[in-house]
């Protein structure tokens, strides 16, 4: 058990009043506190955006990286030391745009990470341009006038499922109890876990607001969904119309990336010393 005081963030929060990120931070503190992993074994890896400032608001190891590249950095951290509990906090503008390729490939590698997407449909920090998850027709300062965002949004749950993610869920920042449970499951999962977190941007997104999500979300688990069927999960992922499903879409046990790499038995590359005699043998084998 890690206490709220121990997790107290080093910096003053800069999010807007009513921001959906507050619910995510509170849920994260709960999930981290109760996970049973020592505090110094957690590492938060974030990208760039409002949500990616979260490492400064919770007291854990952290690296605040680049727009879109957090998952790639995170997989390196994880593979260098399997003891670490690596959490990725990124936004939709970040990871569903520049970072989408890394997300898809990390999913198919089943690398043991928990990826939490702070998904609000806008580029908040750069002041409201449409993001890759903005609905078609969403009007912003960079969408074509009249038409709004001229393309369909990234359906990250569907993408993750088709890419091969072994834990896929959707949470809502307004349902902290549900979100804590999903985060905890994602952290405990051995493999690539993705939680798409619906998170209103009060300042920029007039469409995807608290009211909208409160009225349009429903729980998969309360409606008899089979979490062991990838096909059923994909069907649910595409049933994103008037009603948006939340909860666990899919869960599967599968070999993780680390199991296939040449890591030392203790999983700690960081402390491993190469046997210099073996290197000498490799050199000597090249001698005629």
């Amino acid at each position, binding site marked *: 058990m890690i206490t709220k005081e121990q997790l107290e963030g080093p910096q003053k929060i800069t999010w807007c009043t009513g921001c959906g990120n507050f619910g995510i931070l509170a849920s994260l503190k709960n999930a981290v506190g109760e996970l049973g992993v020592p505090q110094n074994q957690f590492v938060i890896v974030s990208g760039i955006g409002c949500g990616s400032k979260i490492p400064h608001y919770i007291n854990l190891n952290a*690296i*605040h*990286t680049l727009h879109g590249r957090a998952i790639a950095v995170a997989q390196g*951290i*994880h593979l260098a*030391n399997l003891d670490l509990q690596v959490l990725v906090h990124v936004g939709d503008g970040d990871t569903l745009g520049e970072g989408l390729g*890394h997300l898809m490939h990390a999913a198919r590698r089943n690398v043991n990470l928990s990826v939490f997407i702070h998904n609000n449909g806008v580029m908040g920090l750069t002041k409201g341009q449409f993001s890759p998850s903005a609905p078609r027709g969403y009007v912003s300062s960079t969408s074509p006038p009249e038409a709004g965002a001229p393309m369909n949004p990234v359906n990250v749950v569907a993408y993750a499922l088709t890419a091969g993610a072994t834990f896929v869920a959707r949470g809502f920042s307004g349902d902290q109890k549900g979100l804590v449970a999903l985060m905890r499951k994602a952290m405990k999962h051995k493999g690539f876990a993705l939680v798409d977190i619906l998170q209103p941007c009060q300042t920029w997104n007039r469409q995807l607001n608290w009211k909208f999500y409160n009225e349009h979300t429903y729980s998969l688990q309360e409606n008899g969904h089979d979490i062991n069927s990838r096909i059923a999960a994909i069907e649910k992922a595409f049933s994103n119309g008037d009603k948006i499903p939340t909860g666990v879409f899919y869960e599967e046990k599968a070999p993780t990336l680390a199991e296939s790499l040449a890591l030392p038995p203790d999983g700690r590359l960081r*402390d491993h010393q190469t046997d210099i005699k073996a290197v000498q043998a490799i050199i*000597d084998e090249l001698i005629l």
Partner: protein
Amino acid sequence: MDITFNIGGEAGQGIDTIGDLLTQVFVQSGFYTFTIKDFMSRIRGGYNFSQIRVSDSPIHAPIDDIDLIVALSHDAIVGKRNQLVDGGVIIFDDTIKTEEIDACHYPAPLQKTATEVGGNIRMMNAAALGAVLAVTSFPFNLAETALNEIFLRKGRKVVDANVEVAKALYNLTKENWIGTCAHDMSTVKMGPCKDRLILTGNRAIALGAMAANLKWISSYPMSPSTACFQDIVSNAQRLKIGSLQTEDEIASLATAIGASFAGARSMVTTSGGGFSLMVEGLGLAAMTETPIVIYNAQRPGPSTGLPTRTEQGDLLFMLTASQGEFPRIMLAPKDPIEAFDVATRAFNLADKFQVPVMILGDQYFSDSVKNVPRIDAGKVEIDRGKRASTMASEPYERFKLTEDGVSPIAFPGDQGKFVVASGNVHLENGHITEDPDIRNSMVEKFMRKIPQILKTLNPPQVFGGRGAETTLLTWGSTWGAAYEAVKVLADKGVSINLLHFCDLFPLKTHILTEVFSEAKGVVAVEQNATSQFAKLVLMETGLTVDKRVNKYDGRPMTPRFIMDRLKEGGIS
């Protein structure tokens, strides 16, 4: 003795195998060899060659004159004919249809002998060897001893089969071939060279990295760097090295930064195009002061350029890559033996100063083969730099301001510490800030590292003695051709020396300014069109070179090429 063999043919015909066997036989017989690989960016067909220079004294570059061509295709018969010396011989497979050719050249039954005597067309390497030995009158018993050593690991049967095929063609040639070769090696005895380690630049970098306790490599295949990545991956299980072929170069560097942040010595291998994608990662490594080694085996650009050819065209790009200003280290080994040392130093420098270290190779350096003395891996020293105390009572600060600009490092998971880093400007504790005073402190922290780095880097080397009238200025792989050109000219009485840089940046200027003031004329010799290193020298010292020798056709520099250019400039 100084003899050059050119083995040419289509991709997939086994040119490399013949070249490798010839190299091995000569190395085993006590000679110095230098082999270049010239191949097209295709899997089958085309015209490729492997060119082996053999000498009884040390050699460091390819030369233009070819004494003997082994041709497995028509293109190979004609491709290098203009470089063939008087009395040079072309040995070609007798199945190749060709126009009238001088009787001195030799249509040899290479395929036929391989199949009929060896029972396998793949024995053509031994057949070619037999023909080469016969044409040059190389003592067969010397080659036989060498073949024994080379194939013994594969068993008696393999030795016997190879000797049998080589001998068959050797005898056949002695009976049937009526030409004479400019080189008669019948009196050759075991040579003086004891260097039995056959290395490419790529392999030397890989070995150096492995000896330096490399624990993580993530790369994306890109010629001509790929063989380095492959060498490390092929030893990953044995040495416990984490390795991953990522989806792109962006992910490769980002993943390596992650692994290094978590405490594993990490590197990436790439070429210029891949490095272009890594540039934002370079900035992240710099800002988070995460040690990283980047190996760029350069090839001619821009864009795809010439994928399998050579150039030193990325120097200024790598010098200034990324937005913003930060310390970085750039090293360019001149040959495989120096490459091993450079790779081990690169990791120590990265850890010691917590900066990106970039190794600049190029296709010529990366793929060419030299026999070198045995490397003693046990002599490699590992310096992981300043580690944070495990006893500290105060909260850990990853970016603590220190006198030398380097903060004690800790890794996530260390007891009693939280390690926080950010690509944003940050406080000493790693959390973000926009405070102008902190910004100044952090920039100044970066800048304080530079004099420390300069003290640690190696000075340039001067070859041919100080105080010459003409100084050639080189960096990286151009050393070999320039070194040989200087030797030839100095022997002729020309007052000339060579100022050579391996450690390129930050630029050590002390010896440089002295040599510039001693020389009447300085000539920059670079494998690029714009003399990039000369520009770096100008930028850092205000000193200008007097002449430039540039080569940018993608083919390696030769001593003759340099001497011809110098002659045009009145130096001969």
